[in-house]
């Protein structure tokens, strides 16, 4: 039985590894490893086979991800739906690869599998617990779908579009085109804000600040019209446009809550509405807040 053989070999191997000179140590260690592998029935061709399977799995995930991304761009309206399947496909491919390695390459029996599990448990307990936590996090994300590829999320102080959900980490691209890699464990343990939750449209909040003496009703009307006439807008009964006013001591905030038709245009939308609204504000005599100067008594007055 392979399990028994392993139990017999292991103490010998560990005692060999503790011997003195470096060159001798390396040689002995490699001998010990090879004898341990032989005890499992693993020869060099098996190792090559395993590496080949893993490489093929990696290549397959890249090809599948590429094809699904390409299809999603061709069928624009299904973009997020198709991209959502990429992590699932990756999980399935790697899962199949591991199953193939354990089942067909190593041909492990039940007892061997138990022994193998014991080894894995020890590895996890000592050195790989973070890696395993990340992989488990990846599986949880794929199954629970708190976010998907294409979503805009804010997590752990970072904001960006999810471009990839790997087994170990999730990749975001920030608005300034920086790649942010967040481990999956962190993604599921932190509070996460998902701006669109799988939809193409996404709410955008646009704040404009006007002088307290300006006509706030007119400003609200202009901002509403700037929002609903933008080329990037999306409006429906479930995605209405909301305009809000807030009074502050030295200024007023006019806020539009409005949906962009494709989250990729979030910032173009914000810029378009802001620009056109301000052009119309100035035409209508609506002014930005004046800079205030504090006098020694503490009263504020507009700067000259």
């Amino acid at each position, binding site marked *: 039985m392979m399990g028994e053989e392993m139990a017999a070999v292991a103490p010998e191997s560990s005692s060999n590894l503790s011997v003195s000179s470096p060159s001798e140590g390396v040689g002995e260690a490699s001998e010990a490893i090879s004898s341990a592998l032989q005890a499992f029935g693993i020869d060099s061709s098996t190792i090559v086979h395993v590496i080949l399977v893993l490489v093929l799995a990696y290549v397959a995930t890249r090809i599948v991800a590429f094809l699904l991304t*390409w299809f999603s761009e061709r069928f*624009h309206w299904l973009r997020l739906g198709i991209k959502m399947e990429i992590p699932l496909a990756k999980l399935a491919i790697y899962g199949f690869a591991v199953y193939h390695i354990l089942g067909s390459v190593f041909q492990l029996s039940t007892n061997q599998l138990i022994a193998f599990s014991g080894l894995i448990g020890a590895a996890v307990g000592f050195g790989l617990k973070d890696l395993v936590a990340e992989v488990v996090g990846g599986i949880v994300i794929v199954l629970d779908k708190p976010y998907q590829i294409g979503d805009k999320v804010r997590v752990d102080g970072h904001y960006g579009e999810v471009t990839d959900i790997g087994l170990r980490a999730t990749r975001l691209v920030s608005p300034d085109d920086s790649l942010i890699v967040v481990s999956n464990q962190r993604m599921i343990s932190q509070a996460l804000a998902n701006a669109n939750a799988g939809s193409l449209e996404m709410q955008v909040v646009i704040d404009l600040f006007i002088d307290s003496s300006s006509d706030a009703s007119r400003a609200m009307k202009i901002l509403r019209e*700037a929002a*609903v*006439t933008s080329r990037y807008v999306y409006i429906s009964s479930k995605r209405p446009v909301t305009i809000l006013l807030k009074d502050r001591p030295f200024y007023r905030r006019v806020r539009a809550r409005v949906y962009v038709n*494709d989250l990729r245009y979030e910032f173009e939308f914000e810029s378009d509405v802001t620009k056109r609204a301000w052009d119309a504000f100035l035409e209508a005599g609506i002014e930005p807040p004046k800079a205030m100067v504090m006098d020694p008594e503490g009263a504020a007055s507009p700067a000259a």
Partner: protein
Amino acid sequence: MEAKGAETPFSVDLNPPPQRRDGLFHMPPFFEEEMKRVEESIEDYREGIRRNVAIISDPFYGEADLMARAASMAGSDGLRIDGRRLRHDFRILERAPQRIVMVDEAHRLSLRRIGGFDLMNRFLSFVTSEERLFITTWNSFSWRYLEEVLGLGRHFPRQIILPRLDAGQIREMLLAGRREGELTFVEEEAPGGDSKVLDWRVSRRVVMGHNIDLPYPSVDPEMIRSRLKRNRKEKESAEDAFFERLARISDGNPGVAEHLWKEALDYPEVRSSLRDPPTIDLDFDESFVLGVVLSSGSLELDELSEVLGPVDLSAEMMAAILEGKGLVSIDGGTVTLKPEALKSDIEHERRLRLVW
């Protein structure tokens, strides 16, 4: 201040229907159900029940003919006026004594820009406050947009959506008044007719700074449909095949079908080689401009400039790009949709969610 008696608005537009800008055919006899609902509204109104009517359709549907029939039913009680004209002189409406007001293309009272809804709001207040009956026609894309922005539906409780026609109805419409066997349907290979169900195309992608031509399989759903059909009905006449294809390419739109029919008709022969709608390849800004034209049917270049605003986009340049791609025509400063491209336009705009 307008000079009194400068025009005679109360006698205009009543008898002849307004000249259709697309110069197409008369209303097909298939909107009888819809016409009946318009007539009911007029009868109800005369009996004291007022329910304003909105007739909603895609461009080229022939809704103007429904309005002409409504106008003749309203008789001297009715005023018929075009939305574009009302936009230039809203007071025509305020001064008119008629009790039944018919507004063609009412969507023209608004323009997609800041301040562009003022006249529409004025019109809607007028519609609500008056005791008159309003019968209006709307571009379906403008209607859906304005419904979300202004809540149009509240003001027009009776909404009549013109349905698409099937192949049989299109055949009946186009062959009306012709003798049996007067026309010969000639089977021809469509342009680019060596179509295959599965073909290989090449897409150029940039990978690590290098251009790579990526071949991919392209499936032609049109060909699949046609092959399946051929299998189902081995012996389909050239005439049947022509009208099936015409209905599909026109998407059941009577105006588009009429336009394509005119292209195919070479009396006494009808060529079966109908062109497919053009493939659309536009960037986002060009697509937006196309959406604006689609939501109106036709648009003055000045109006388009107002919509685009003082940005880098020139209305003339954008319209010229669309014209170059065979999607619109420009005639005397007016940008008009090309009927043969309508189906592609709609699919493209919906895909980008620029119209709903």
